[in-house]
């Protein structure tokens, strides 16, 4: 397993390197006008000076070497537009914890509600709870998220007598953004756990367990749920980390100082160092998520092993 992890880690580093190189080269293809808000009224000397200060007048290989040299020293550079002069990491480090808090609460809430809901739907397949649950899932998936986000914000704040803006110091202020962020995941977990559990419950080993006289509760949780949860388990870390990365619209609507929308914002502003810092972060999150997903699958399903199988 350790050997597998080391190999996987090395491959991940290589992937990370290629992602950074590609993004680095791509952002440098953007029009130079975007670097200068006052482009129209600047002299050529001002523009040339700006490009020089950014290092954009250097050959691409030199720029790349400088970037990776800085990266190896833990230096992501400073923001040029988003928060001019401030180190990229100083900006990101204040935002990540907020998104982690919000994302963690959302995932926790989604699991607490979504998994029992899916299990209950599977147990009552074709009956009222199943129909109600399906209706909820269809509703959440059919209605654009932005619409119900807005409804929750406007009517929820009205009902709770709180302000439209998020206030981290007021616990009541957390409820509606977390609820909004969770709805999609609740529907997702409920839908998939129901589907996997329904699939598992028709398999032969379940019939055998029933014939052997196992109780329904034991069959449901020891066999069906455990097996149905395996494909979910692989998705969980990525789902968690994606939620941590932030929800663009939720964070925008509620003015939450997290990561949501940050990448889009800095791309619009052509803040190269910020773009690369965030891409690095997101790529790491994605890679770690996939690795953790694999590990979780091994934990939940004893049939899966990282060890190489020998032939006869």
């Amino acid at each position, binding site marked *: 397993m350790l050997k597998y992890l080391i190999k996987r880690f090395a491959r991940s580093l290589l992937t990370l390197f290629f992602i950074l190189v590609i993004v680095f080269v791509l952002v440098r293809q*953007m029009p130079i*006008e975007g670097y200068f808000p*006052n482009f129209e009224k600047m002299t050529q000397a001002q523009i040339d000076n700006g490009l020089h200060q950014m290092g954009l007048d250097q050959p691409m290989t030199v720029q790349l070497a400088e970037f990776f040299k800085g990266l190896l020293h833990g230096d992501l550079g400073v923001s040029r537009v988003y*928060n001019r002069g*401030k180190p990229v990491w100083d900006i990101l480090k204040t935002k990540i914890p907020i998104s982690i808090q919000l994302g963690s609460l959302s995932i926790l809430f989604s699991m607490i509600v979504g998994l029992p809901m899916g299990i209950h739907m599977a147990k009552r397949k074709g009956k009222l709870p199943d129909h109600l649950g399906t209706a909820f899932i269809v509703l959440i998936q059919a209605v654009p998220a932005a*619409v119900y986000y*807005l409804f929750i914000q406007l009517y929820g704040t009205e009902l709770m007598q709180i302000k439209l803006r998020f206030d981290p110091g007021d616990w009541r202020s957390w409820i509606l953004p977390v609820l909004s962020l969770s709805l999609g995941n609740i529907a997702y977990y409920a839908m998939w756990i129901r589907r996997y559990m329904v699939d598992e419950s028709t398999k032969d080993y379940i019939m055998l367990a029933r014939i052997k006289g196992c109780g329904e509760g034991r069959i449901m949780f020891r066999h069906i749920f455990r097996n149905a949860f395996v494909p979910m388990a692989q998705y969980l870390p990525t789902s968690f980390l994606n939620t941590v990365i932030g929800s663009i619209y939720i964070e925008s*609507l509620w003015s939450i100082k997290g990561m949501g929308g940050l990448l889009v914002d800095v791309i619009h502003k052509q803040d190269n160092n910020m773009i690369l810092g965030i891409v690095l972060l997101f790529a790491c999150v994605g890679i770690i998520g996939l690795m953790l997903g694999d590990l979780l699958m091994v934990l939940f399903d004893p049939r899966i092993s990282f060890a190489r199988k020998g032939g006869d």
Partner: protein
Amino acid sequence: MKKALAILLSLMLLIGLVPAAVADSGTLTTYYSGEVSTLNYLVSSTENDQVVGANIVDTLVEYNTLGEVIPCLAETWESSEDGLTWTFHLRKGVKWYNCFGEEVAELTAADFVAGLKYVLTAKYESAIASNVFTAQIVNAEAYYNGEVTDFDQVGVKAVDDYTLQYNLANPVPYFVSMTTYGSFMPVYGPLAEEQGANLGVDNQSIYYCGAYILETFEPQSERLYVKNQNYWDADNVFIEKIDQLYNAEAATLSPIAALRGEVDYADLDNDILDDWRTNHPELITQARSNLQYSYFYCFDFAPQYEEEYDPANWVIAVNNSNFRHSIMSAMDRLYGMTAEADNPENLLENTITPPAFASVNGKDFTALPAFANIDQYFYNTEKALEYKAKAVKELTAAGATFPVKLVLTYKSNDSDWANEVQLEKAQLESVLGTDYIEVILYAGPADNFLSQTRRAGKYSMQKCNWGADYADPETWTDPFAENIDSETGLHKGNSYNFIDKMLDTDNEETKAFLTAYYAKVAEAKAETNDIEKRYNLFAEAEAMLIENAIVIPFRKSIAGYQVTKIDVYEGEYAPFGICNLKYKFQHLQDEFVTAEQNEQSYQKWLEAKTK
């Protein structure tokens, strides 16, 4: 999606689900969606950033609500007879404070020198250094470019603590107006030295001598301005606190937050305006007309677009005066404008320079004799067809083919603009006929729009705009100035219509026009003593562009609708610089300004301004 959400919000307002409430008095609370990039007013050119600078640091002079220059940090000023030296006598006893309101030092003339040195230091990348070049301060550009290394050779000097002197290479009659830009603001010298490029990274790395102190600066969260109680003109600062709260969806949520009493100001976008007119007509007020920008249509004389649109054929057509006049006369500008404004008559301009921008001896620039007969060149379908007939004959002889393809460009994410060009296409083609022109609508990208369209020459005709840089009509000639490659000596083309490139061709008609036009502009620029003569010469030059249908004037900036507790007519008024971004002189009402109050204030302001 944003439009849908805006409509959704309007429906909610319609069914009255949101109760009104009263905000705290003394604190102006607003939402904002665009965060400032830096607090360093010496480097930033964006209005977002400049709002901060305008309210925390003062300029040498400022403007009153009627647009007249009044003393600010300078109590008096004068220029030498030759117009090359400007001396400002500073107010005594003005102090610098830190963000905690603690006094740091007295403001002296040396702080203006330090400010200019910072702006001209290339490594700090000031985007507004070009304002200093425009002001023609001796050796300013040379110092920026590294050709002069001793700052003492730059034309700015602290004669003593309270006397500041600027030396200019050439007389600049509008110099005083240029001092209202960030590039002429003071900075506490030792702080600028200490902070270097980090000046203004946060509210602790900048000092304050203006009406407000930025007590809290948390990007993507809050900006809290608190009145500087020791401000030299504290009696004219009426709003105690300004609390600006970040919300990325401020445009959508501000109107509803205003009705809930959570904010005291909100812009009302066109999408929700009709619903507001139905439900809260009494709260809709209009912003004060902004003279900062003028909009006009340009023809591209050196198109760079794809062959399928036949740029070579366009070049033949656009160099024909009758062809240009046929388009200009066929264009019903008011009709096109209805796509983005409900009061086009108030916005229409027949000159590039906006009315009320400048005046001489009590006469508005746009009313000078050169513009007396300018109306005859605009919308007139009969004349358009006459021009068409002549153009067809001449262009056929010149080898052009019909219909001439006219690429009309707009920004893809601007729905109003998209509607406007649709109307213009329909209107031009119906008047002139599709046998004559084929208007092709071309949607430019949302990001880097200008570099992909106008500056790249990818259009035949495009709505362009220009903002004034100083209080002189010369500023409106800048977009059409010659742009010459220093190495080849050939014209690279100005980025507005590339017409100067025609000087390097054998197109005699356009060359003759350009020679006369540039000579007129040069003559006007050279006239620095007799302002009336100067203005008349600039008016004649501008009229040449219009009479020859090189440029089609369109409109001034649209004054948007809003719901606010501030009377906009109390604020400083200037079509350049940063003074109009100040909160000084303005009162915060307990209740929202009503439409009636807004109209009364406008009439009162107009009356005072006319006097």
